[in-house]
């Protein structure tokens, strides 16, 4: 069972494109491609990070989702105000499952929704007064919070509120950081700009706070774990491996993270970056300003984990390198047992992925460890540099689709008939009703963690559980099945 041949895949793309009007077809054609490992630069075969075509069903989010949902939301000891109408905060509340320790409502606020609940009068007269009042209320009700971030929703930008001045005033009054974010949903083409805005806010409002403070006692083994949002406990599963090999994790960005960890990150020796898309801006900034080098790593699947651990250890001395080998040796037998158990059940199965900004490339290794093959991959909001990194990991003839529309994804799946589709919640029920096993790969379908060695055990189990579930051949009514069999005969 191998991926489609190049010509077949190209013909399929042409066929799918046919329904579009000419202009839209021309536009969409640039976003669909067949992977070719020989291509060095993705921009030669695929265009990304462009505005979606009006009228199609896109799966993208907005800048607010990128800032509040992705980067800032998981910082547990801050209160994140969804500044604007009530819906944006309420419908995204706690859905991402970035786990944290602490007492919600006392010293941690991750799953709570704070909103200024804009009414007509706030749109007409401005919401700054309300915001001030809201911050005062938070200070009274939740005195143990360590700071506030103000996440703008669309109206704030449209009516031109001055949230910066409110932030400065209140930060002074409370003596706690108050960070304004101009992440109105209408900005940019996808949530990717929200990541950038959030990164810039951390750069401007948080990182310089401890520039002249040298009281932190650092060790030569300090690292910052960035771009891990602790979905289902991912960051914890990663962190224990790093600690086991002798490193000290001084900051976790931003899953189960705190504001003081954000401030400490520049004091680390190395910045380990998991989600390149959402945090590369800060990694680059910290390298320039503080001289903290950064490195991308991948903690999905034993092959990639071992590779990453060795790569991380190479930045340190022999003690850590020994530690890395020790960790790998410790877990290898466990991993072999898992592969032995699940590989025969999953061998040769085909997977199509359409997730956010890093997973389609990161999980390729994990699927390969299980003997599965990725036959289609695409990103909602990736940029060129993500596709540059992806193409190397994919085999010849893999379908690539950027910002795929609902129609295209459905057609691709109908024709390729993969054994498993991994995408988001909006796609889940369509494909399940089509009788195709599906995993929701944004927040691990209420499972997880998937990072690290412990995560791989769960990953393998989940894939097996979904793929080999007996329900999939029960989707057709028995009399229809008989009909279909008769027709086939």
């Amino acid at each position, binding site marked *: 069972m191998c991926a489609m041949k190049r010509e077949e895949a190209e013909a399929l793309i042409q066929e799918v494109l046919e329904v579009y009007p000419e202009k839209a077809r021309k536009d969409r054609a640039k976003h669909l491609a067949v992977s070719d490992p020989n291509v060095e*630069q993705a*921009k030669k075969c695929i265009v990304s*990070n462009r505005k979606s075509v009006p009228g199609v069903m896109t799966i993208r989010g907005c800048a607010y989702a990128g800032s509040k949902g992705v980067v800032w939301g998981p910082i547990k000891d801050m209160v994140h105000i969804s500044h604007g109408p009530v819906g944006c905060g309420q419908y995204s509340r706690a859905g991402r499952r970035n786990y944290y320790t602490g007492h919600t409502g006392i010293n941690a606020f991750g799953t709570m929704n704070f909103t200024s609940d804009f009414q007509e009068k706030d749109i007409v007269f401005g919401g700054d007064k309300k915001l001030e009042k809201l911050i005062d209320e938070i200070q009274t009700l939740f005195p143990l919070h360590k700071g506030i971030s103000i996440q703008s929703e669309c109206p704030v930008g449209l009516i031109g509120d001055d949230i910066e001045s409110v932030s400065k005033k209140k930060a002074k009054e409370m003596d706690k950081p108050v960070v304004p974010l101009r992440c109105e949903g209408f900005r940019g083409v996808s949530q990717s700009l929200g990541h950038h805005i959030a990164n810039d806010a951390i750069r401007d409002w948080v990182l310089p706070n401890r520039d002249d403070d040298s009281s932190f006692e650092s060790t030569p083994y300090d690292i910052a774990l960035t771009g891990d949002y602790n979905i289902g406990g991912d960051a914890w599963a990663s962190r224990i491996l790093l600690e086991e090999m002798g490193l000290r994790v001084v900051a976790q960005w931003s899953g189960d993270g705190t504001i003081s960890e954000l401030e400490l990150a520049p004091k680390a020796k190395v910045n380990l970056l998991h989600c390149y898309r959402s945090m590369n*801006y800060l990694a*680059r900034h910290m*390298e*320039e300003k503080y*001289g903290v080098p950064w490195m991308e790593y991948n903690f999905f699947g034993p092959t990639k984990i071992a590779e990453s651990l060795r790569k991380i250890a190479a930045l340190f001395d022999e003690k850590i390198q020994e530690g890395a080998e020790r960790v790998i040796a410790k877990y290898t037998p466990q991993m072999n047992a898992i592969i032995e158990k699940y590989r025969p059940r999953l061998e040769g199965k085909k997977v199509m992925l359409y997730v956010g900004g890093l997973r389609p490339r990161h999980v390729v290794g994990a699927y390969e460890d299980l003997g599965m093959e990725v036959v289609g991959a695409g990103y909602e909001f990736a*940029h*060129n*540099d993500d596709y*540059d990194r992806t193409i190397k990991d994919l085999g010849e003839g893999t379908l690539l689709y950027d910002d795929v529309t609902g129609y295209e994804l459905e057609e691709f799946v109908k024709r390729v008939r993969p054994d498993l589709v991994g995408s988001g919640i909006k796609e889940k029920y369509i494909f399940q009703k089509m009788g195709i096993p599906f995993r929701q790969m944004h927040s691990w379908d209420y499972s997880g963690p998937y990072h690290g060695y412990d995560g791989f055990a769960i990953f393998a189990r989940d894939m097996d559980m979904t793929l080999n579930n007996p329900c999939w051949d029960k989707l057709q009514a028995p009399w229809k099945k008989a009909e279909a069999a008769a027709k086939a005969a």
Partner: protein
Amino acid sequence: MPSVMINKTEAGGLTLYVPKKDLEEMIVSMEHEGPGRWGGELTLADGSRYYLEPMDTEPRLPITLRVKRL
């Protein structure tokens, strides 16, 4: 005049990163690399060329600079 970041790779070469274009590319040639003068015309691996106002000393890398597209 895009704002770009110039960085050293592990292998010792220089890269140019243009955030606006998500372009990260090796610099294959630089007009002035020697001591006393650093910058000038840059050629990237993909063939595009940029002009960087020459500096007297080699700066600490990475560094964010403005360059001119040629």
